[in-house]
């Protein structure tokens, strides 16, 4: 036992080392964020006017530019209508969070709870679908949206996001599998319909997985850029992601302000529900 105990100085040394590494790691993660936040409050817009990482002076000008209306005198909000982009993103993300969660949760529940002929086939099908590259069908989706008049229409991405959500049902199914079957059998004997059992028994029990699902369904469109770039080609229909991608070096601080503004709510959300996120992550991991 004794020979394992390190001597006092050595122990201090390792403790100090642990702290040093931790601080360095945290710095690496924090520094880019800090840089962006500082730049968002920069008085000048272009990255070429910066003193390295630091803006030459500070002001709230960029944020003002972001939020003032379309009739701005300089006319540049018309060029980069951030508020419109933001609203578009919000609408798409919220609609997807509602519709996608609804479809995903109910699909996962049914596949977990009901025994029917096509069940195994559906599960295998979903597995095969998941193996195709995510935007293999993008061209087709693009053409389809043209046909259905869904191009430059916020419903295009909303429909795409929410209808494809059920393919990723596995994590949620894993959760529902953990609710004992006998509860539903008891409900059946009690004469409760399947639908009533779902919303009276299952839903109240599923709060963690509901939070997790809503969150993932919300953040996906919130930070996706491929689909909106393809389907929303009109500047007034851009989402924030697509809009920010069009900003040149000279609009660096506008980019930063815009990023800060959409990152803050999502970061706060993550911190509030990080418990659920970690649970969801590990659940997904264990279920493979």
């Amino acid at each position: 036992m004794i020979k394992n105990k390190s001597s006092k100085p050595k122990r201090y040394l390792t403790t100090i080392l642990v702290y040093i590494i931790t601080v360095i790691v945290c710095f690496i993660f924090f520094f880019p964020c800090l840089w962006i936040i500082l730049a968002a409050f920069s008085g000048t817009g272009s990255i070429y006017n910066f003193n390295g990482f630091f803006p030459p002076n500070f002001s709230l000008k960029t944020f003002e530019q972001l939020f003032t209306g379309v009739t701005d005198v300089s006319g540049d909000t018309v060029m980069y209508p951030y508020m419109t982009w933001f609203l578009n993103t919000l609408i798409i993300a919220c609609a997807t969070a509602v519709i996608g969660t609804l479809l995903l949760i109910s699909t996962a529940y049914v596949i977990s709870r009901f025994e029917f002929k096509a069940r195994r086939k559906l599960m295998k099908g979903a597995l095969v679908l998941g193996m195709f590259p995510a935007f293999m069908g993008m061209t087709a989706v693009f053409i389809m949206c043209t046909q259905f008049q869904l191009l430059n229409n916020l419903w295009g991405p909303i429909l795409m996001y929410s209808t494809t959500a059920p393919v990723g049902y596995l994590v949620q199914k894993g959760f529902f599998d953990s609710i004992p079957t006998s509860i539903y059998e008891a409900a059946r004997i009690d004469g409760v319909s399947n639908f009533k059992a779902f919303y009276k028994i299952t839903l109240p029990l599923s709060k963690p997985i509901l939070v997790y699902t809503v969150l993932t369904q919300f953040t996906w469109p919130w930070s996706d850029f491929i689909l909106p770039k393809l389907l929303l080609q009109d500047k007034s229909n851009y989402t924030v992601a697509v809009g920010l991608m069009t900003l040149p070096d000279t609009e660096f601080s506008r980019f930063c302000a815009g990023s800060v503004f959409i990152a803050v709510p999502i970061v706060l959300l993550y911190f509030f529900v990080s418990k659920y996120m970690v649970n969801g992550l590990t659940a997904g991991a264990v279920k493979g």
Partner: protein
Amino acid sequence: MVQRITNYFTALGKVIKNWFIKLGKNTKSFFVNLPRNTKNFFIGLYQIIKHYLITSQYPVYLSAIVMGLGQVFNKQYIKAALYFLVEVGFILFMVFLGGNYLSGLITLGVNQADPILGIQGDNSIALMLMGLVSVVIIIVFIYLYISNIRDCYRTRNVILNGKKPNTFVQGLKDLLDKNFYKTVLAIPLIGVAVFSVVPIIFMILIAFTNYSSSLEPPTDLIDWAGFESFQTIFGAGNISDTFFKILGWNILWAILTTVINYFIGLGLALLLNSKKLKGKVFFRAFPILAYAIPGFITMLAFKFMFSNGGPINYYLKLFGADTIDFLGIDSTWTARFIGLFVNAWVSTPSIMLLATGILSNLNTDLYEAASIDGASKFRQFYKITLPFVVFSTTPVIISQFISNFNNFGVFYFLRGSIYSSGYFVASDTDLLINWLYRLSIDQQNYNIGGAISILVFIITSIISLLVYVRSPAYRKEDTYR
């Protein structure tokens, strides 16, 4: 150790080989049996219908001819009306649109447009896509048609047995009880069919056409071209060179990122769980911050950071050094390393969270037992922690490998506008998935793009299959039910 690694790879090779053989056999038998299976399908359909027809009376015949008519005789008027409307709608669709789409799916259009003469030709691509959608609609209709006959048949039997058939309201109630699963699955199934399955089949079909940048569909007709795109990829030439160069880098990238991210993530988890560290919640907030920020912001920010006018070059200039074009056209390996770094910055936090969760499940008795046995800290880590974590995260490692293999974002943002010399519309950092995007979305070389997506699918599915077969979820699902 070496022996074990060799064994592992031999086993792996065998699995992959067998999988290929099986795939080949299955594909072959699929095509060989296609005519027979199609025939059998229709024979089966016929037999189902015949079964219902022979074993019952005239209302069922009527239902087979006109949907809903049998239900009228069963005095289920609302149901009858609904079925009838479905049939009318379907016939109208087929007459005015569906027939055209279906034949278009096979011929890909026959009328060449001529702007001078003002002839509006067939849009091959639209025809093809809508043809596929029509197939979905037809499948749904067949399902409804059979359910119509079956329903009539069952109701008839109930009536013959002297019982009262279900009322319409009862039928609606069943949708929330006995048939709850059908009600729930209907929308997701159709949604997935139209927005996921149809596009994928469409791209697979496109790979076998001549749809490339030289043809513009509303004006030009597209035609079937067999395996031409695959020949282009595997034959000699610029495209083939590009494909193999990109494939090589793609595999290297997937391995490097997976290994780097995994060990950094694990290291972070161990570091931030260390007993010596106080204020863990505070320190852990930083990686979570990185995890929460939308990926495109991070990657764009890094592009700015390494750009010509960016802060890094500013300091280089300040100290009198030459500026470096980190992401420029000639900086292959610097750009690749920056890609590795950026990807690590984005991905390690999620692995850290995962490993933290797994570490908290680790039985501490093991450590106590080990330290009583006199094992050193390093040995404890090497003998207990590492095997446990690696064992419980194997599925994650492999799914990480796949997502890294198909990592679109990093190089799209860092070097999205660069076209390297010696590459066919690609940069030297591009992965297959980036090339696929450029080929099909930017350059409209859809047939090559389609062929490449099929190849990416094959690679991904081999890896996924290995994961899936190994995962406990699969084995469990197989043993019960």
